[in-house]
């Protein structure tokens, strides 16, 4: 009876734990493990590197555990007298060994972590033989529950969608008009917070054309699930013609229009041939309070966000 329990435990954990973990190392199609840009690539490399250590630890502990539980169960047939040492209570050598080995693992994990951390704070190095391109500056501003992407050099602004050229670093300037949010495009790299009264810089880059999912990943209230956007990564020429289309065809963004957009709620995708940066900079002390001062009443109303319950309607 007891032996059966043991086998059940072992068999239950083995496939569930190890095999899924192994298959998780890259064979399944998972966004984080299928990077489309240098930042995501370096994070993926780091995750892969750490997974080997983790797998090693898991294998060692599970093996030791199985050995102990099977060999030293009380009613194992053929137990010997020497299998029981009730007063065994320590062994300095072995205790030093199992303190030092984890310490070494921590050091081995720390080194690439620290170097990657510093690398992520600057634009990715260009591929060999290519010249470094000047990063494209995009201000990504959130207001409950939408995204504003301002391209100051091109003097255009989009709402709830993003176009970027491939193979050119993007320098995101992150800030928020109200609650704290986070810009996360898992295919291109990890997230950073958008905070009112502050400005964070995040470097990402796409090295493959495509349409990627981006979102606010930091919970910020009722419309959180709908605060997503698509990232269109396209060749430089396509990007440039998209920019000039907007410059020529889209209307300018007026101050009143922008203030209307800041009201809590959802809004459609849109584009403008000017940016809101001339009216408000939410990344400063002066610009951080506008929504809280003017729209606090609106947060008392419950939004009826039935429309966001269907995926295709808001992506």
């Amino acid at each position, binding site marked *: 009876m007891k032996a059966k329990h043991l086998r059940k435990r072992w068999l239950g954990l083995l496939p569930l734990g190890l095999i899924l973990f192994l298959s998780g190392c890259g064979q399944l199609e998972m966004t984080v493990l299928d990077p489309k840009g240098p930042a995501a690539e370096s994070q993926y490399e780091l995750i892969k590197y750490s997974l080997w250590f983790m797998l090693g630890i898991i294998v060692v502990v599970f093996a030791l555990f199985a050995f102990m539980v099977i060999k030293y169960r009380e009613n194992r047939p053929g137990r010997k007298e020497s299998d029981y040492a009730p007063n065994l209570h320590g062994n300095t050598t072995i205790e030093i060994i199992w303190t030092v080995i984890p310490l070494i693992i921590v050091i081995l994990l720390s080194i690439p972590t620290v170097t990657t951390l510093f690398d992520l704070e600057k634009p990715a190095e260009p591929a060999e033989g290519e010249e470094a391109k000047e990063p494209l500056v995009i201000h990504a501003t959130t207001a409950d529950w939408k995204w504003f992407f301002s391209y100051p050099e091109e003097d255009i602004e989009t709402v709830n969608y993003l176009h970027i050229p491939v193979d050119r670093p993007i320098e995101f300037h992150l800030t928020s008009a109200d609650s704290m949010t986070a810009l996360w495009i898992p295919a291109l790299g990890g997230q950073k917070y958008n905070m009112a009264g502050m400005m*964070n810089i995040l470097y990402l880059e796409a090295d493959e054309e495509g349409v990627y999912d981006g979102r606010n*990943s930091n919970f910020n209230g009722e419309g959180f699930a709908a605060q997503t956007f698509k990232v269109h990564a396209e060749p430089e020429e396509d990007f440039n013609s998209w920019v000039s289309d907007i410059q020529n065809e889209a209307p300018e963004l007026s101050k009143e229009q922008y203030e209307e957009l800041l009201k809590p709620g959802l809004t459609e995708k849109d584009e403008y041939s000017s940016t809101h940066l001339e009216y408000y900079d939410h990344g400063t002390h002066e610009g951080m309070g506008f929504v809280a001062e003017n729209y606090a009443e609106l947060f008392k109303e419950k939004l009826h966000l039935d429309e966001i319950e269907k995926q295709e309607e808001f992506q």
Partner: protein
Amino acid sequence: MGITDILVTGEPIIYAAMVSIALVSIAIPVLLTYFKKWGWLWREWLTTVDHKKIGVMYILSALLMLFRGGMDALMMRVQLAFPDLGFLDSQHYNEIFTTHGTVMIIFMAMPFLIGLMNIIVPLQIGARDFAFPWLNAMSFWSFFIGAMLFNISFVIGGSPDAGWTSYTPLSGAALSPGPGQNFYLMGLQLSGIGTLATGINLMVTILKMRAPGMKLFHMPIFTWSTLVTCFIIVFAFPILTVALALLTIDRIFGAHFFTLTAEGLPMMWANLFWMWGHPEVYIVILPAFGIFSEIIATFAKKRLFGYHAMVWSMIIIALLSFLVWVHHFFTMGAGAFVNSVFSISTMLIAVPTGVKIFNWLATLYKSKIEFTVPMLWSLAFIPSFILGGVTGVMLGMAAADYQFHNSYFLVAHFHYVLIAGTVFACFAGLVFWYPKMFGHKMNERLGKWAFWIFFFGFHVCFFPQYFLGLDGMPRRLFITNVVEWLPLNVISTVGAFGMGLGFIVFVYNVYYSFRHAEREKTGDSWNGNGRTLEWATTTPVPFYNFATVPYVDEIDPYVRMKEEGKTTYDESQLKPIHMPSYKATPIIMMAFLGLASFGLVFEWMPVAIFGLIGGVAVMILRSFDYDDGYYVSVEEIKRIERKARGL
């Protein structure tokens, strides 16, 4: 605000909750009157200062809260597996995940462990009660009334909906108007008083009231874990108290500590919260380590391997727990250097934790493992916790954390450590010490069913969530709106219901064992394998615990006592025992403060002021109370001991 404004309306689930709350609140007084139990309840329980009874009340309340938090979890899982059902809307889902997290950490995990500490620690160190029994009762009532205050938010006023972390500016008055967040602030503040008082109380108890001869390094490992936990509580909880107070002043009196306007610093909340919050997770895991250590040594029938290393690793974990809070927001943009420092300090915690894991495995080496229910929970902890531990190290690698943060990878990680660690330990400890509390064991067969169902449910529920996180699913998302995420979410929901079923079997086992289990005749309930002093007491434990206090100068004193055929009882040494009197003041005082908190939640100042004055009045009254207890006569002790020992 009128009564119609404060009742939450419009949701069938809430109406159902209202009806059931009303039925329960009617049923309890009716049953008490019918069975003429009012006096019994008041005299034996509501006014008690006995650490064992207070511990039982803590555990019962914690089980109730586990049920409530579990229902929240199941509702979330139904919503995520069947997004087309429209079961919960966004607002409702947000309230439910907020209360789930808060209830499970503050009103389930901590009280459950504090309940076990209440019952067991004085017995393990040969004490007759806490250092401050009155304060202990007050702690319990502050927790209980705080928990009830938090829970009524479901039907009155609306629940908090900004997450258990309650980050500003989202949780400030501008973005979260209404009483919901106030319930969070006042519920935590009120129960926090009790936790802090318990920390001080147990610390003094352990430092001052150990049996003669018992040095710190003779203490049972669970008592050690409690002592270390108490230090964390005493250093960490004041931070929470201050943070909650500042946010309360912001919300109710219009200050600007964390606001978006008038030079507020919204991000300061995240720092303050996690300076408490990270030590908090060790407050709920270290006692769990202590419980597993006791159980593994008992059913391996062997001394704990590396006792000193176990103690020192807990102390190092406690110190490190104050130096890692930034890892909860690596993505705030503090810079590569700051993140590197906190990344390394975070990963360092893996070293003492690894030492503990290897010590448990070494305890099993050359042992005689008996697979009782508490041992099954403890053994299952080791491989399960490792899965949570290694992913914790991965999260600690800041550069990779940018991809894991706010995702289901994180959700899976902390459920792996909190359930495989804390919840398994709560179940293990409850089953293990159950005979000490109630005079009979829990049924082993049902206990094994509960264990296996819960164990498999747990892995099926949370393992898939690692992969959801790697596929970019963020936490706190009220709807599974990406088709690729649906299959794993369905699997996860199946697992969650497995855990629910396991819990039902566990609770049914309480009832079944109460009806059918054999009553204990000896105090050493687990086939005479007890190693520490709590097993040297008779069952049921007399209210004074030890008639004569034993002399202890070693680890596992009861093992030698049994070898030498001794007991702790020495009739020739009997002296009258000084015991504290039961008091009504703790519950009355906390009821007043509960009323004050309720007033503050709705910003009804007259109610708040009345409650505060009442609370202070009881405090003053209490300081003029010169009753310092009574003596139990030698004859009575003799009579009780002879009956219990069958002499």
